[in-house]
């Protein structure tokens, strides 16, 4: 049965492919913001009956941070540190897309085989979670700007968040909000660190960061 929910999840999957294939930092930031928005809508749409107040808090908190706050921070970071606004990947875009397709197949296989105590709201939810973890990891290891590392980390977090709302009955609100808070602090700190790295070393190329030794 195709519900709007399923369509939203497919859109979420497509944003991940777009992340793997896009070459501009600005479009990466926009896509991650779109993911935050989609996750917020999925949070509300995934509730069978009328959603309770905690669901709305969760959804609105998610949209406010991932769709408004983080993109603003990212844009500021990109503007301030004065870097080339392209991704410059170690692994090419086409190869990344191919890796994406393979990892999506793997996640479907894995998602069908893992037993969970309660059923997720959609068959696609759990495979998408694994897929987003893969994509986040792929973005972290195959792109060489410090900012794309944060984007990859955020994609992984989005995946974990989707996992959380798949089993929202079983997970307490405070755990979810706590995770969200952790992420906010993490992105803040990374924003500051990126700025400092740029001021100290004039580059955000992670390959050169490996040379930093005492």
């Amino acid at each position, binding site marked *: 049965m195709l519900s709007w929910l399923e369509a939203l999840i*497919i859109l979420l999957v*497509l944003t991940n492919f777009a992340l793997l294939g896009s070459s501009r930092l600005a479009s990466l930031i926009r896509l991650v913001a779109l993911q935050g928005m989609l996750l917020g809508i999925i949070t509300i749409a995934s509730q069978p009956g009328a959603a309770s107040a905690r669901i709305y808090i969760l959804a609105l908190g998610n949209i406010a941070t991932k769709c408004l706050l983080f993109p603003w921070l990212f844009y500021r970071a990109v503007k301030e540190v004065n870097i080339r606004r392209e991704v410059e990947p170690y692994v090419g*875009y*086409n190869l990344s*897309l191919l890796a994406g*397709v393979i990892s999506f197949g793997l996640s*479907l296989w894995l998602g069908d085989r893992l037993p969970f105590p309660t059923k997720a709201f959609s068959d*696609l939810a759990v495979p998408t979670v694994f897929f987003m973890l893969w994509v986040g990891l792929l973005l972290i290891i195959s792109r060489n700007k410090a900012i794309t590392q944060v984007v990859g980390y955020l994609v992984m977090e989005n995946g974990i968040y989707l996992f959380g709302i798949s089993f929202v009955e079983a997970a307490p609100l405070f755990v979810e909000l706590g995770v969200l808070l952790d992420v906010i602090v993490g992105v803040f700190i990374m924003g500051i660190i990126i700025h400092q790295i740029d001021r100290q070393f004039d580059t955000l190329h992670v390959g050169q960061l490996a040379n930093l030794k005492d």
Partner: protein
Amino acid sequence: MISLSFAVTFVSSLAVAPLYLSIINKTKAFFAGRQGPPLLQPYIDIWKLLNKGAVYSKTTTSILFVSPVIGLGCLIIATAFLPVGRTPSIFAFDGDFIVLAYLFALMRFFFIIAALDTGSSFEGMGASREAYFATLTEVAFILGLAAMAKKTGTLCLSGMLTQISGEMWKQSGGILALTASSLFIVLLSECARIPIDDPNTHLELTMIHEVMVLDHSGPDFALIHYLSCLKFWIIGSVLVRMVLPATVHSAWLDQAMVFAAVAGIAVAVGLIESSMARLKLNTVPQLLVGASTLSALALLLGLR
């Protein structure tokens, strides 16, 4: 009765195919504020070329001469696989969608060796680009058709296209939408339209498809013009039957609806051509790989 409606559809598809080219051109002219060429211009062009003599360079062999004819044969066979309204074609058999892909490939192969046959390095460059992009397009095409075959549970093209229904869109619209968007990119690429290739360009270094056929003249060139129209009709009618599965339970009316809906696709292509520019040559593969990704995604979702 079935063979009569098939014969009428078959002949009329061969006859109206060039009309869609002029619908694209009319749409482009409308958005550019021009009047545009008359609706029958493609026919007039083809007629004019057919009445001219052909010029063959002394370096070429018979390959240059036979390649458009072989192409015509390939596409006429491919047209015969298309269903009539909502009934399968009488030539349909299991696995004919793979034959369809191979017919396109065979035609392209002959165009490419004809381009190499002229001995011109410029045409060699065009042929190499065409081969490169076609390789990527084929992946999207085959995977998309495979996703449809999996979804409808039949291996024959007519069967797949006639089994798609509104019910199926409700149940697994995601898969069908992914396949349809991938096939639309395939259509743009196979028919050498913007954003993959610009049919109007004669700026030498940016041409892809046009380069290969520079040495064809007269009737050969008329055939090549006609073949690109026919290709648009074949892929366009496959796409139309995917996105508009409505039926009124009458083979004639259903087929008339398909003819009208392909005109809609031609308008959409015209809209794209008037609103965007051609992609940079090195970003074209990215778009085509993206189309393959959509098809692969549809197939994976259909497989579970």
